[in-house]
């Protein structure tokens, strides 16, 4: 039935065929996609890790490439989920009218939004798995706790997919997404200790950083990738889940408004 704009999500098992539909399209393009997923981080890690790392030396008592690799894998989850939930979801929603055709079957908008969120998170997992393999093969880290980073990176995917779907629901065209990348995602990577530590930044910037979901993600993922114990587990998980919950609900309300207004 038509739910009110602000109703709680009504998700039924029919969301699953929508996830499978996206998976089926991805499988057709999987080879170039996987090659890109491995080649891109491989090149970045080698170039910056060894090139820049030789100048920087150590950060926090560890080689720069370890610092960079563990930050990059987190950003990769963010970018993969964000791209999928912005550009790809928008193509399906607006350009190809895929959502419209699905809505004419017994599948509801709540199912579709949930499926898109979950699918974008899955894409993030595919992407980070490839990078973790690269990190393992290059010997940057061989810590078994890398496997524990995977579920955390899945949550990072959920969080950033949800946030991106908010902007997807508001978009009037692809151009709109440039703002999101330039004004939200890019500054966030510089305030979250991805490529360099936050300690030398002014205090107020550190304060902003401390409430960002990417900072919470890095705080969890970096130690797990490098075989250390995170200093705090509960707070970063709460931050990520909080952004995910608020983002997902907001995305749902705005998407309902877009379709049923």
């Amino acid at each position: 039935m038509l739910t009110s704009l602000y109703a709680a999500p009504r998700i039924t098992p029919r969301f699953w065929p929508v996830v499978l539909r996206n998976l089926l399209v991805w499988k057709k393009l999987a080879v170039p996609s996987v090659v890109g997923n491995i080649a891109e981080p491989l090149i970045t890690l080698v170039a910056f890790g060894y090139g820049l790392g030789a100048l920087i030396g150590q950060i926090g008592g560890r080689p720069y490439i370890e610092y960079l690799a563990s930050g990059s894998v987190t950003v990769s989850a963010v970018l993969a989920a964000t791209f999928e939930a912005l550009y790809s979801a928008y193509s399906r929603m607006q350009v190809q009218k895929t959502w419209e055709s699905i809505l004419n079957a017994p599948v509801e908008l709540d199912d579709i939004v949930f499926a898109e969120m979950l699918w974008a998170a899955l894409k993030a997992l595919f992407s980070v798995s490839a990078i973790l393999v690269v990190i393992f093969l290059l010997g940057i880290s061989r810590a078994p706790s890398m496997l524990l980073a995977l579920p955390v990176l899945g949550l990072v995917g959920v969080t950033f997919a949800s946030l991106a779907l908010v902007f997807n629901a508001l978009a009037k065209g692809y151009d709109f997404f440039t703002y999101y990348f330039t004004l939200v995602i890019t500054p966030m990577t510089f305030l979250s200790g991805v490529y360099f530590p936050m300690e030398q930044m002014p205090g107020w910037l550190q304060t902003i950083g401390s409430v960002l979901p990417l900072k919470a993600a890095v705080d969890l993922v970096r130690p797990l990738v490098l075989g250390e114990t995170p200093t705090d587990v509960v707070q970063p998980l709460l931050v990520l889940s909080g952004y995910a919950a608020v983002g997902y609900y907001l995305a749902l309300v705005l998407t309902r408004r877009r379709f049923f207004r």
Partner: protein
Amino acid sequence: MTEPLLRVVQLTKAFGASKVVDALSFEIHAGECLGVIGPNGAGKTTTIRMCLGLAEPDTGRITAFGLDIPAQVRTAKERIGVVTQADSLDPDFTCAENLRVYGSYFGLPAATIEARIPKLLEFAALQAKAGVKPGELSGGMKRRLSLGRALINDPDLLVLDEPTTGLDPQARHLMWERLQNLLQQGKAILLTTHFMDEAERLCDRLIVLDHGRKIAEGKPRELIAEHLESDVVEVYGDGAAAAGTTHARLAERVEASGETVFFYVREAKPLLDALAADHSVRYLHRPANLEDLFLKLTGRQIRGDA
């Protein structure tokens, strides 16, 4: 009379101050094709969206198969097939995959879907195109694939929003033939169209919408007989405007549109004799048709919002 497949009662929907659908009621029974015609902006697509639970009526009641829309639309949609105005085929999938994936949204067992795919491809005259993506299909093929896709759940009611817009005559005729075939199988069709020949050919009954209101309803031939004189004489040429005045008394009604004058007559002979003597005009005598009715009821002027 049996319970209708779709019943719409006193449906009203406003966007802001303008009523898009205004106190609209109609029914569709099994095996029947109901045509909805009206100028752009008359409320056709909004009505369809409400029947599919995609927009909420302000007031009024919709039931499909006895189920309340939108409350039970999910169950109702198991028995409805939809072809939308714009193509929404999946460009990344082949024809067969389009059907297979769409079937999955209905929760149909894989074996059922696989059994239906070759039949639907044959129905859409696309057997040879099973492995081809929609980007390589002609407009007519795409529309037929869309129709095939709408049949994947073997629906009892088909909702077709301008299914032949943009098709060439061959493709339209093939589409009509397929739709007639479906009606013979006992399926009901709700059809919107701008083609009056299509409406006349396919529809058992028509409703004419204008500004969201139903301004006429009935069988195509009966509507024409009820609202129009039996014959129309179209007059063109330099003397057309003058002829419109001189011969006005020989017709029940005279209308001018651009360079053409339309005489609506019950008995054409006296007018035709008079025109035959007038060498400044050319003329065409024909029976009144649905297009004449449409123009009489909704006017000849182009709409500002169209």
